[in-house]
């Protein structure tokens, strides 16, 4: 590589670093300005004393955990069974798991609300619909993570070994397969968690308490608390991605349309 090339490389990298960090630095500085004339953590203190923040944030955490658990219960047996017994439906399953990329989140919610807000399926007010929606939005990431995990182990041999030792399907799934792909499941889980924590559209239009709608409301009402909340949200994204890299030692994953 010629010398001028290296200089250009540094130029683009520095530009990228600035693009990445400037909005965060600005938000952080903004969050310290709550007390006139001095820098302080007042905005954070006020935020943590806001009972709505605590409530909505906790609900988002709860939605995230439920999404992960129910998602694992649906996707792990499916991916396992497809690999072991019915490889001919693989294409169909993969097609379905990629559908959320084709259907923008706002269109998906539009369909959900229109479908489930009148009989015979009047469940628009149930948290179950919200969780189902979150599972759909995180499905491309969750399913792909699990499937990648299964590809890296010898599913057939492990299953047959389990069977010849007298294990039932439950034991095989939860005590043999699941522990063997826990790294893949974890990375899918943390990505799903990050998606749920940042997701605005579903919670907003299904009228459920969640962090992102709270933040949107805060931006309308206050000046400095939303900055503090944004920093917290960013730290959370960073933590989720960091854990994925730590446990997975794999490449980082990107989120598509869903949360934007």
């Amino acid at each position, binding site marked *: 590589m010629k010398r001028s090339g290296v200089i250009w490389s*540094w130029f683009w990298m520095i530009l990228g670093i600035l693009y990445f960090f400037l909005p965060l630095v600005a938000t952080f500085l903004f969050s310290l300005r709550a007390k006139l004339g001095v820098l302080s953590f007042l905005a954070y203190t006020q935020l943590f004393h806001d009972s709505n923040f605590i409530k909505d944030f906790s609900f988002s955490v709860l939605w995230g955990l439920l999404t992960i658990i129910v998602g694992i219960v649906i996707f792990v047996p499916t991916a396992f069974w497809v690999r072991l017994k019915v490889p001919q439906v693989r294409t169909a399953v993969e097609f379905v798991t990629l559908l959320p990329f084709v259907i923008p989140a706002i269109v998906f919610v539009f369909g959900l609300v229109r479908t489930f807000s009148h009989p015979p399926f009047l469940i628009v007010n149930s948290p179950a619909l919200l969780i189902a929606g979150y599972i759909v939005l995180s499905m491309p990431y969750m399913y792909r993570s699990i499937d990648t995990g299964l590809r890296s182990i010898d599913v057939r041999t492990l299953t047959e070994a389990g069977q010849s030792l007298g294990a039932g399907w439950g034991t095989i799934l939860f005590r043999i397969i699941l522990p063997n792909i826990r790294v893949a499941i974890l990375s899918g889980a943390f990505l799903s968690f990050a998606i749920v924590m940042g997701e605005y559209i579903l919670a907003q239009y299904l009228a459920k308490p969640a962090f992102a709608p709270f933040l949107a409301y805060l931006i309308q009402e206050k000046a400095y608390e939303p900055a503090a909340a944004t920093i917290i949200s960013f730290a959370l994204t960073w933590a989720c991605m960091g854990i994925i890299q730590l446990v997975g030692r794999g490449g980082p994953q990107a989120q598509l349309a869903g949360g934007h």
Partner: protein
Amino acid sequence: MTTANVVKRDAPSARPAPSKFSWAWVGVVPFFLFAFMFLVYPSSTIAVGSFENATTHAFTFQNIVHLLQDPNLVNSYWISIKISLVTALGGGIFGFLLAYSSIRGGLPPFMRSSLMTFCGVASNFAGIPLAFAFIALLSPSGVLTGWLRAIGYNPYFHGFQLYTFWGLSIVYTYFQFPLMVLVIAPAIDGLRREWLEASENLGASSFQYWRFVALPILLPSLMGTMILLFGNSFGAFATAFALTGGQINLVTIVIGDQLRGDVLGDAGLGYALALGMVVVMAIAISLYTVLQRRSERWLR
């Protein structure tokens, strides 16, 4: 043909025919049931509603016709497409330059891994918090605006507006270029060093190397990834909504309004509007898949 052969061939049919029907597929029923109920069926109601009179439920093309005749709605598609093109191209080129610099630019190796980590975070950092981060940076009372004012340059005196098309493009680029970096990196890895050395040995200039070797190989990946970026911003809603307070005329924003209350005064029109988005996305994702498959030829 000997008798022994005939006997051998006939032998299996003497046993009872193995049952063709297998119960194994029952194992995937829960998944398909879930997907049908919460994804396929709700989405299909959009397609059905688009070709249905909202009151009589009779089949009609009226909704599509009305959509195409409404200048405001056509314009919302146009603005959404324009912002997606601009940010796919801008974010795509910037992302490619970043990825190439970090992989083949002669930088220390840790730059690559840090870049990938940053990009993993940044492409997931979107929606409401992202909008606020740029409000803190570039709004009239934002931090960068303050710094620029201090050195005597107020961007707001020079036609800059955060809450308009170009402002939103800058914000979208924040989640566009990291996605480009992550998706294009394997393609850049696939560019063998030998190809550069070979073309240099044959006396090619760096322009000729790019024009005749690197670019033709990378082109399917570059275009495919940029189409992916196009879809990424075409479906975006929360960022634009939080930044402009719903004041910008994007398709997603109009659908959001329609969902809150029938602002178009025509339920069928709302369905058609949503269906149009799915059509655009389906075209984009199909193109991406085709191009990705083409690029894999070189990148083994």
